[in-house]
Every structure is written in structure tokens, then in C-alpha cells.
């Protein structure tokens, strides 16, 4: 036996030691795995502490250990810690194996004897495996300093500005004609009630005019290839039918366009736009977009009013979609959210009862730049409501729809209550399950709304109906609800109902996730690397998630995440190169027979067939180390570092205790 292996069993306070007899595991490893090369086995309170690490480093130096097994927590937590410790002591970091006896043993089992026995098996597997580990060197690749930010809402804008201001180039891609996102549609922002446009548009303009930002609106990412530091991204720039070089954004084309269309996106269906339009006055960029679906020329081949009146000849009916290919080192996804479709809660009557409004519709109603110039009126466009009911948690915290809390709806409901009260003097009722006003100055805002005289009913609304039972209900919308504080059922007639709808992941979030190689949670939000300590990174290095793409949140949190991801990106850029895991597959050309079975298996196109030599070859820069080709090669000609056949077979044997001291018959 040439290897000298040290086994280190962690107590993790009582996290492990409470369920696993750690001293026994260490003693057992020294006794039963001695013939495998275990020369020292220790247990210690906190292996990951500096003292624990020093213990290992000291043993490596003094006992000349050639392999280390640490039985502690999941490798996803501390593998790096112990690898660095080994490196400090002069041992190649890849000669360290982590045996997880916390997440996979002590935290999920209760019987001490059983957990101790399983820990021994796990340690035995790791010892057998580590013997087969080979020293590896990290592969360094240069980082492309350009960054792609996908989504031009406030989170994406913030992220792009941080990086651009630091002096690096950003491509900001937005699906809609203008950046601004949902925030551009809002009237006021809670809890300070500053005007959404007033705080957002300067940022939009800054992003639109920044020398380090290339703005690509009306564009979508269609393909992503490569890996951290070296992504190659294809973006489809949809035809605007406007020559951006010539357009001055004067707006004459919109004025002259004869075709009026209901604006379902920006005005939430309450207002109109033309077939050639900029979604709103402060749009960035200020070039209009031709809506091909509704343009008379595209429909009938005649009209061209816009072309006739355009002072700079900027209208181009022959413009085609354009594919743009860019190289970037990091990608920030700020793709935002979709509003919960209130139609799905059919008992609240949205879409059936005209005076039931969604939160987004109300935002447009109360917005001075909106279709009613800020007048809060019923669907007829003129009647001012005398009583308004605001329903919280529509689609959220509801087993029929989404279990999660959408974070912003309570505050949004309070904001609506304040605005209705302020502008119409109407009686306002808020129907809530629990009031969630946790963050700076939020609860004070709640107090203020209470003092203004808004009435609060605690209970889940059963239905909104126009079927009157009593004379005072005629012509009204009746809110049927339980009042859990008073312990009775109530019927409250109002003129107008506002549904404080929750947030949902984008309808295409899963497809987008696939495109960028990241996963979604059960609810459909993008999955972060760590829910607390790494909320803006993903499992895929070089891809970050910010704002509501990661989960429901308010504007301050979205801005903070946008900036946080940029700190991550800048950290990468400034390091100039990134160390990649040296887990790669290689072809032994002597053994390869050129059967080409592996050729079709690599989604990263890392395998090429060399026809002259009749062998296949793997490009290490493109190989992502998944090992599929290693497992597939019928000749056994492909081997993979880090997860070799020998390592895994050894681990199987070890886990099955096939490696113990042979008992003399």
C-alpha cells in the first residue's frame, strides 16, 4: 500500500455528533481501513474551523499524507475549504474527498446505531475512492470583459449601469420596444409615494445614452453557447420597420397613423395606441415600432401614411429580423415576472364584471399619463366610485393557485387605498388574510392608511358578485367575505373592486432557463445557488439572476440584487481569468476505433471526428465534464478526470464494504 490516507470525522457541534458516534467512526476507519492506507483517523468538533484545517495541514506535513478524506457536511458546502487547506500544506487539492455524513446521514436519520453504520460505509466509500483520485490542475481561461444583461426592467438597468460605470461594456437586451419594465407602468411607489416615472426615467435615459451600454430593444436571445468567461450569444433583433439611423423620434408617424389599437401591454387594455407606436412618452430608445399584425399596409398593401409624413424617410417596410452574435464573459438575467391572471379566480369576476380591476389596470387609471389622465373612474370612463374594495392575496398564498406570498401585494393594496382615498374621497375597504408590511417604513405606511380611515376586513373573500339581495346592493358589486376578527360573514357593496394580484414567473421562464442552462424551482422562479448566501448566482457559473426573475420582491430589493450581481460580474472581470474545474473527458486515440457513437452525444459540440486518423477527439475548452461520452464509449477509450471509472467502481466497492481487512478463513 503506497498511499497514506488521513481520515477526519467532523462533529459539526452536535449536528453530526448528536446522531453519529463520530469517535467510533474514526476508530473504525483506522482499524478496518488500515490495509487500504489509512494511517491516521481523527474526530474534531469543527473540521471547517481554522483549527480543524490546521489539524489536517499539520498531518499532511508531518505524516506525509498523500490522500485526505473529510467526513463532514455536503461537498457543496466545504469541499473548497478542505481542498484549499490541502493545497496550503502542499497536497494537490483534488486528492481530498469529502464524505457527507451530515446532509446525507445525521440530518436525515434518527437511529444512532444505523446512522453510525451508514457513516462508516460512506467513509469506506470515500477512502476507496480517494486512492483512485489523481492530482489535477485547475484550468485557467480568460474572461471576456463584456457582459450581457437580459431584461431592461429596473433590476436589469441597475445591473447594466453598475458594470458600465465601472468601465466595462454591457449589452442590454429587452424584449419590449422600450426598457423600463413593469416599473414604467406604475403611478406611485410605496411607501414613500414618489412617482415611479420620476425615479425610473433618469435611470432609463442614463442606460440609453451610456457609452458603455449597447441597447438592444425589441430583441430576444435565441441561442447561448460556451461557458463562464466565454459565452457566445445569438440575439434576434426583431424588425422595427424603422431605420434607427434616420429616426429622430419626432412622433409624426404615430400622429398620422390611421389605425388605433387597444394597448394590451403598456396600458393594460385600458387605452389605445397606433399601429406604429412608442409604448409611452419617455420610452428609451425613443424609436417607434411598427406593429406588423395591425398595420394596414402589411394587411392590405396600401396606406403608408407614416412613410409619407416621415420627415427623415426613416420608415422601412422591407426591414428584416437580424441575428446578432456577441461574445460575453458573464450573463445577468433580469427577466422579471408576469402578473397573475386574475381571470383564473373566477369567483372574483374579473373579465365578467366590468368594475373589477386588476392592480395593473388601476396603476394605469391612477397614472397622470394614463388613459384617464389619472382620474380614478369606473369602466364607463366617467363615474367616480364612492366605495372601493381592494382584495389582497389574489392568486397568492392560495392552494388553488400559488402557495407563495408575492411580497408586494399588501403594500400595493395599501398604496391603492391611499390613492383612492386621496383622489376620490371614496370609502375604501381592504380585505386581507395577513398584513405583511415588513421593511423600512412599510408598517408606518400601513398606520398612515389606517389613520386615513380605510377600513380593513381580515378574511378571505369568497366572491365578488353583482347579484343583489338587498336594496342597498342594487347596481353595486357585492363582496362576500368572512370577517375573522368579528367572527361573522359580511356582504359589502362597493362600486369598484381592485384585485391585488400576485406575481408569477414569466410564462416562458422554463424555456429561458433551458436556454441559459439554469433550473427553476418548483414554483417556476429561477433557482439561485444558495438561498441566503448566494441569491444572485446560479448553479451555472457566469450566469446570474436578479429581481423578480429570482422570486417575488419589491423595487428596493430588485435594485439591490441588480447591483449585487454586478459586483459578482466585476469581481470576475477584474480577475481576468477564471479557474475551471479540471473535470474533462479525453479520448485515448490508441483505443478509439472511430465508431463515432460518441459524436452525437455532446450538446456542447466538444467532440470532433478526425477523418484522417479515424478517431474522435475532445476539445477541452468546450467539454463541460458531464461524462456522458465516458459512459457511452463502447471501447472504453474515453476517460474522465475527477469521476473516472476506477474512482466510481472503488467507491461502489467501498460503500458495499468490499474493501475491509480480509478476514482469514
Amino acid at each position, binding site marked *: 500500500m503506497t498511499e497514506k490516507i488521513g481520515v477526519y470525522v467532523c462533529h459539526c457541534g452536535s449536528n453530526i455528533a448528536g446522531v453519529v458516534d463520530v469517535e467510533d467512526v474514526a476508530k473504525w476507519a483506522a482499524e478496518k481501513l488500515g490495509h487500504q492506507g489509512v494511517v491516521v483517523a481523527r474526530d474534531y468538533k469543527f473540521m471547517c474551523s481554522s483549527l480543524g484545517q490546521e489539524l489536517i495541514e499539520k498531518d499532511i506535513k508531518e505524516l506525509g499524507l498523500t490522500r485526505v478524506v473529510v467526513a463532514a457536511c455536503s461537498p457543496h458546502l466545504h469541499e473548497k475549504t478542505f481542498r484549499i487547506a490541502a493545497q496550503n500544506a502542499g497536497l494537490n487539492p483534488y486528492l481530498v474527498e469529502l464524505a457527507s455524513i451530515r446532509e446525507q446521514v445525521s440530518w436525515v436519520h434518527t437511529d444512532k446505531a444505523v446512522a453510525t453504520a451508514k457513516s462508516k460505509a460512506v467513509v469506506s466509500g470515500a477512502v476507496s475512492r480517494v486512492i483512485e483520485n489523481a492530482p489535477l490542475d485547475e484550468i485557467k481561461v480568460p474572461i471576456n470583459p463584456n457582459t450581457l444583461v437580459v431584461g431592461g426592467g429596473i433590476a436589469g438597468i441597475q445591473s447594466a449601469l453598475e458594470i458600465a460605470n465601472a468601465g466595462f461594456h454591457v449589452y442590454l437586451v429587452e424584449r419590449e420596444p422600450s426598457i423600463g419594465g413593469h416599473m414604467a407602468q406604475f403611478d406611485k411607489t410605496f411607501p414613500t409615494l414618489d412617482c415611479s416615472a420620476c425615479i425610473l426615467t433618469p435611470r432609463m435615459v442614463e442606460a440609453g445614452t451610456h457609452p458603455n451600454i449597447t441597447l438592444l430593444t425589441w430583441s430576444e436571445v435565441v441561442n447561448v453557447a460556451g461557458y463562464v468567461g466565454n459565452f457566445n450569444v445569438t440575439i434576434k433583433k426583431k424588425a422595427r420597420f424603422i431605420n434607427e439611423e434616420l429616426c429622430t423620434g419626432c412622433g409624426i408617424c404615430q400622429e398620422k397613423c390611421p389605425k388605433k389599437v387597444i394597448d394590451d401591454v403598456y396600458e393594460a387594455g385600458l387605452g389605445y395606441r397606433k399601429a406604429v407606436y412608442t409604448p409611452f412618452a419617455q420610452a428609451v430608445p425613443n424609436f417607434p415600432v411598427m406593429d406588423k399584425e395591425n398595420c394596414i399596409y402589411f394587411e392590405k398593401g396600401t396606406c403608408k401614411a407614416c412613410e409619407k409624413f416621415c420627415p427623415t424617410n426613416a420608415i422601412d417596410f422591407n426591414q428584416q429580423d437580424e441575428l446578432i452574435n456577441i461574445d460575453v464573459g458573464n450573463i445577468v438575467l433580469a427577466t422579471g415576472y408576469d402578473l397573475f391572471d386574475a381571470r383564473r379566480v373566477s369567483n372574483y369576476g374579473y373579465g365578467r364584471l366590468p368594475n373589477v380591476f386588476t392592480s395593473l389596470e388601476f396603476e394605469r387609471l391612477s397614472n397622470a399619463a394614463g388613459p384617464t389622465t389619472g382620474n380614478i373612474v369606473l369602466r364607463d370612463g366617467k363615474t367616480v366610485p364612492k366605495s372601493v374594495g381592494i382584495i389582497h392575496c389574489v392568486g397568492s398564498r392560495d392552494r388553488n393557485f400559488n402557495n407563495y406570498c408575492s411580497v408586494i401585494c399588501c403594500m400595493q393594496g395599501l398604496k391603492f387605498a391611499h390613492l383612492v382615498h386621496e383622489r376620490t374621497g371614496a370609502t375604501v375597504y381592504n380585505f386581507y388574510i395577513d398584513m405583511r408590511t415588513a421593511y423600512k417604513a412599510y408598517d408606518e405606511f400601513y398606520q398612515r392608511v389606517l389613520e386615513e380611515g380605510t377600513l380593513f376586513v381580515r378574511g378571505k373573500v369568497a366572491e365578488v358578485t353583482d347579484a343583489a339581495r338587498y336594496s342597498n346592493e342594487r347596481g353595486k358589486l357585492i363582496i362576500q367575505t368572512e370577517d375573522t376578527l368579528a367572527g361573522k360573514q359580511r356582504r359589502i357593496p362597493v362600486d369598484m373592486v381592485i384585485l391585488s394580484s400576485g406575481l408569477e414567473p414569466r410564462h416562458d421562464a422554463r424555456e429561458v432557463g433551458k436556454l441559459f442552462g439554469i433550473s427553476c424551482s418548483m414554483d417556476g422562479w429561477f433557482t439561485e445557488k444558495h438561498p441566503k448566501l448566494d441569491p444572485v448566482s446560479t448553479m451555472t457559473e457566469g450566469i446570474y439572476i436578479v429581481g423578480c426573475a429570482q422570486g417575488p420582491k419589491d423595487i428596493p430589493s430588485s435594485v439591490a440584487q441588480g447591483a449585487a450581481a454586478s459586483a459578482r460580474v466585476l469581481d470576475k472581470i477584474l480577475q481576468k481569468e477564471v479557474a475551471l474545474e479540471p473535470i474533462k473527458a479525453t479520448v485515448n486515440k490508441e483505443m478509439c476505433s472511430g*465508431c*463515432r457513437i460518441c459524436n452525437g452525444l455532446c450538446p456542447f459540440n466538444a467532440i470532433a471526428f478526425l477523418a484522417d486518423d479515424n478517431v474522435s477527439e475532445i476539445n477541452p475548452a468546450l467539454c463541460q465534464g458531464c461524462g456522458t461520452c465516458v459512459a457511452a464509449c463502447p*471501447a472504453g477509450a474515453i476517460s474522465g478526470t475527477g469521476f473516472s471509472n476506477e474512482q466510481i467502481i472503488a467507491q461502489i466497492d467501498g460503500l458495499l464494504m468490499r474493501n475491509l481487512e480480509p478476514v482469514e478463513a
Partner: protein
Amino acid sequence: MTTNGKPKFAMYWAASCGGCEIAVLNTHEKILDVDANFDVVFWPVAMDAKYKDVEAMEDGSILLTLFNGGIRNDENEHLAKLLRQKSKIMVAFGSCACEGCIPGLANLSPVGDIVHTAYNTITTDNPNEIYPRTSYDVPEGELHIPTLAKVLRPLEQVVDVDYFMPGCPPESHQIAAVIDLVIKVVKGEAELPPKGAVIGAGDSTVCDECPRARNVKLIKEFTRIQDIAPVDPDLCLLEQGIPCNGPATRSGCMARCPGVGAQCIGCYGPAEGVMDYGARLITAFSSVIDATEPEEIDRILDGIPDPTGQVYRFNLAGSLLKANRDAWKVK
């Protein structure tokens, strides 16, 4: 060591068909080199010899033993151990000795079923259910016939083997090359390969020697070769949906079967360093299937009527699992 100054040579057949002997004879004049350079002391198929003569030999007195056939009964086992004791170089010769081969497919059935099938099928009239016994008393004393083991084992699972020479049978030109090598070693002109080496074969796979053109393969259907008409003579058979074992099978035969329009069935066994031959074929066949839905994949896999036989035709006894579960269970 020698009686006539020549090193001693032995060849034995255990559970095999005799094809390996034919292959040796098939070396034509090369067989004369064997006679010229060796003293053939034991070769039941070619000359009369008694086991007790072998037992009387000194340990290690035979230089080279070519042992073909698997270990099916206690006689095979006895001879394997005996020849191991008496030989310097023990070669597992041919697929049966290396990995079980066709006789190894009997490991798919419990030994009782095998005997029952042999003595009690539609073609064998056995109304009194008479089966062979391993011992029988006659006036002259007790007669013994060899006892069947519960499973057939390749030579290596019974005795220590120096070299492996795969093939069903090994190609004659390969046998000739090995004979030449041993003669050179005897004369001190060459070195023996390291113990445990596979000799008389290549170190890549049949595809390496196969003349057929290969592209990236995506298969929507597996089919038997007789069900395709016509088979494209120049294109990889697997690419045409024929389950060809070539990609996982050791080279050395010069791709004889695919060369003449039949799929490789894997007689040369796994390539160098492979732990389980069947696993390599499972992964080869599944890798070329062009489907993602389980139902569709299953439909395509239905085109391989006997998957176990397909991937383990020659290798079952030498595979990781070695036999069917019922075969192990015989008490």
C-alpha cells in the same frame, strides 16, 4: 524439463465445441513448426494420453498449455487445476476459456432445466423420467461421470491464467503469430508480454478494422439483418439499425463478419480494460437511439428481441453478473 530437448506443449478442451482445435490445425504448415519446436505431451483431440500421465509429470514441466473451453463440470475443473500445476504458461485459448462463449449461455438456465431439456424434450422420448446419475453401481464397482456445476465458469474464475487469446475460434493468422512469438521466446529472441495480457488480438475494436463508412448515428428503429433488403454494402450496419456488436468487440479478426455483410456478434470479447462487455453494448446501442420519450424508446428497443443474449452472447459467464439468478439459486 524436456525429454527430447524441446519444450513441452499441451492443449486441452473443456466445455467447448472443438473449433479451437480446428483453428490450430487451420494454421496449415505452421502446425509443423509446433511439432518441430515443441514436444507435444498432451492433446486429447490429436493423440492418446491418460490423465494419470499428466498427474505424473513434474510441476511446471509443461512450457505452454493452450486451454480451450469453459469449466462446466468437475472433470473440467480437475484438468484446469492439474494443467495449471504442470504448466509454466497457461493460456485461456478461445472465447469459451476467456469468457464462457456459447456454452456460457447455459448460465441463463438452472442446471436442472438444462438436464430436463436435454433428456425430456419433444424429440427425446423419456416416459420413465430417467436421468443420468453421477455415480452408478455395476458388478465391477462404482462408475462415475462428471458432475455438472451450477454455472459454467471461464478458466480465469477457476485457476490463475497467464494469457488470454480470444476469438471463436481465434483467427488462424493470430494463432500462427502467437506460436511464432513463443518459439522466439524459447530461442531467447523475444520477450513475453506482461502477465494477464490479451494476445493474438488487437487493442481497439472491430470498427477499427471495419471497412464500412461511419457517420453520426441516429436510429429510429432496430431491425434484424434478414429483415432489411437490401443491406447497404458500404455503410456501418449499426447506422442501418442492425444491432452490430462491433463497436464494443475487440479487434483482431479483421472485421470478418461486417466485411461480408453480417453483423458482428462479439466473439472476440471486450476491448482492453473493459469491466463488463454487455454494459458497453447497452450504452452503445442506447446512445444511437433518436428518441426522448420513454414510450418511443421502448418501441425502438423492441427491435432487439433478446437484449440479454444480444449483449452477452459470448461474454455471459465472464460478465459481472455471470449467470441468471435462477442458475445461482440451485442448491
